[in-house]
């Protein structure tokens, strides 16, 4: 009972955060970022159902997102021409059902094996569809894509969805429902078996489950929610193009889920929020943000294999044992020089790439033609890197003592 209550509080909190966010940030830009986040969260979570929970690495997940989105836009067009008659609040469901339909078909032959074979089939199907979308113009609209209008159809209690903020609230409700159902899915026997098949398909088969069938169920559920995300995209932008189902979109969702942390339910949510923020805020300041994203992704794979969520969860033991305080100073001692190093590196990159005669970076005015600026930045970078390296041993020591289990105490149970 207590656990149930505790969990419900988390969910109610999540809903409240979703609903009151626009009260604090109500600019047009903020609302548009929130809308992007909502789409990204559902999409990344659906991807995690495949890779994180089912162990299926997909390079073509945008297929279900895109197909759901295309059908959603076509549904909008049909509502406009009064071929069908229902409120547009159901559009994400339309997208989801089409995503499910596509997954039901494709899953029959792609889920036989996980691993490389699955990855290659998903890549092949992704490329196949991306290429066909330029050929079948009547459904995909060629390079221009298809567009609809969300203001037709019966109004929903007087709301006509003219404004982005109205779409945000609709999206927030859908995101909440989708997140809740995806979480509940992980608690069902099917969700638990998906974990078992991911970790050891052979054993799962020995206790009587068909690994293929278990994968198939996860795959279809994942397609459904990717389609919901596509439907949300269609509602928000009112158009969709071939770009939304090609390899670049598939790659982006992989980045989101991985940077956020695959093993944790909250990971992809974190990743979606971080990447959307980076995308919309950093791209205003620098046209090199994709380069930074690439570097960040590689560093995550190399040093934080369980993503940001994994990094946070690493501190669980220290938190339980109330030793977090002893970690603050060592973290600052290592973190501050590391931050300085990163900032100066970005400064160097920006300085060597700027086309103007003066670069204003973090309040400093730098001259790209003066060698002295480069040398100075290089020296700061080198110095801070040295400091970071020097401070690593004390951090490691502090970490070990914070997580050390006293010998006389009974061994504590983590998790």
């Amino acid at each position: 009972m207590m656990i149930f209550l505790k969990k419900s509080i988390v969910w109610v909190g999540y809903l409240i955060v979703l609903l009151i966010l626009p009260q604090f940030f109500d600019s047009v830009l903020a609302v548009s970022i929130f809308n992007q986040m909502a789409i990204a969260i559902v999409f990344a979570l659906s991807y995690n159902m495949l890779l994180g929970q089912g162990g299926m690495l997909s390079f073509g997940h945008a297929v279900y997102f895109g197909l759901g989105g295309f059908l959603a836009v076509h549904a909008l067009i049909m509502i406009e021409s009064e071929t069908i008659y229902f409120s547009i609040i159901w559009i994400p469901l339309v997208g989801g059902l089409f995503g499910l339909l596509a997954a039901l078909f494709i899953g029959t032959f792609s889920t036989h094996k996980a691993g490389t074979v699955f990855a290659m089939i998903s890549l092949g199907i992704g490329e196949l569809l991306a290429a066909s979308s330029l050929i079948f113009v009547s459904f995909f609209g060629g390079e221009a894509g298809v567009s609809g209008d969300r203001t037709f159809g019966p109004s929903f209690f007087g709301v006509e969805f003219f404004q982005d903020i109205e779409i945000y609230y609709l999206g927030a409700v859908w995101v909440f429902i989708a997140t809740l159902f995806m979480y509940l899915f992980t608690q069902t026997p099917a969700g638990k078996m998906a974990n078992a098949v991911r970790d050891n398909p052979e054993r799962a088969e020995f206790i009587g489950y068909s690994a293929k069938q278990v994968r198939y169920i996860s795959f279809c559920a994942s397609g459904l929610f990717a389609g919901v995300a596509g439907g949300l995209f269609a509602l928000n932008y009112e158009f969709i193009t071939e770009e939304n189902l090609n390899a670049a979109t598939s790659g982006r969702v992989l980045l989101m889920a991985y940077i956020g942390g695959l093993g944790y339910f909250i990971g992809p949510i974190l990743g979606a929020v971080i990447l959307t923020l980076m995308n919309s805020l950093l791209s205003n300041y620098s046209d090199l943000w994709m380069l930074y994203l690439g570097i960040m992704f590689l560093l995550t794979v190399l040093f934080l294999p369980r993503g940001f969520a994994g990094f946070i969860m690493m501190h669980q033991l220290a938190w339980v044992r109330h030793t977090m305080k002893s970690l603050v100073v060592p973290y600052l001692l290592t973190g501050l020089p590391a931050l300085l190093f990163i900032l100066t590196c970005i400064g160097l990159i920006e300085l060597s790439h700027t086309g103007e005669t003066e670069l204003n970076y973090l309040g400093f005015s730098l001259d790209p033609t003066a060698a002295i600026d480069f040398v100075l930045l290089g020296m700061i970078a080198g110095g801070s890197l040295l400091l970071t390296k020097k401070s690593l041993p004390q951090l490691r020591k502090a970490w070990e003592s914070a997580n050390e289990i006293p010998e006389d105490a009974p061994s504590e149970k983590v998790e």
Partner: protein
Amino acid sequence: MLDVFIFATLNGLVTGLLLFMLASGLTLIFSMMGVLNFAHASFYMLGAYFAYSVSLQFGFWTGLILAPIIVGLLGAIVERYGLRRVHQHGHVAELVFTFGLAFLIEEAVQFFWGPDTKNYQSPDLLDFPLFTLFGQEFPAYRGFMIGISISIFIGLYYVLTKSRVGIIIQAAITHPHTVSNLGHNVPLIFMGVFGVGSGLAGLAGVIAGPVLTTFPGMAVVLGSIVFVIVVIGGLGSLAGAFIASIMIGLLQSYAIASDVGMPDLLNLLGFEFDRNHPLTDLWTLTLPQIAPILPYLLLVLVLIFRPTGLLGKREQ
């Protein structure tokens, strides 16, 4: 008709052999480390860009030799400090790492060389028609590409099957522990193979750059096709990769050169069709139109019906 056929065959051979230079390295790396290197085509792109930069200073021929060496060294560094580190986290992490690397290399290329197409030219020395057939010229540079690819193929085959190094490599693929116990440095062998594979991809980039244009998207264009080849040929099989490369090269070349399509088929069968039908896109498909998706169609079919590929080993 015959001239179209002959030229389509020649062009298909050029593409196929070029693809094989990439696929051979990729399949060799796969059989060693069990990881499909997503960044393989990125090394091909780096080869073209390095060669372009070198050729501006020292001419094409220096670039032809220097660029693959630089790319090979870069590949070795990636294996030593990147892949080997991620290896402990499992295959998915390795695959994701190479995927991220491909992403990063594309962005880095745009950072250093800019997003526009580079004017990388074939050398003047090879700027003459090799022969003229049916009034159509076949450029000597394409002949040169065929020559390089075939000599690489023969060289690779000879090294792998006849030389001492090749025999150790082959042994390390199947029995890494035994080879290690015999006193060979297996991690070094892995690094070397990765480096040489990347270098081969770089060489392919050097000779393909002038023909297929040098631009930041060139890795993406070729990358997934090379995957298709390696999978169709059978993962880890060099001979399979060779057959699949030539097959895909010819298939695409014939499809583009042909001028038949659904309308012809329907006419042949005696069907009439309506231009305003909702499925009109399907009725009016032509073979050149679907040429780019043929490899992927083939890939999906092969994976469904023969997951081990043409010459792949039977799974245990």
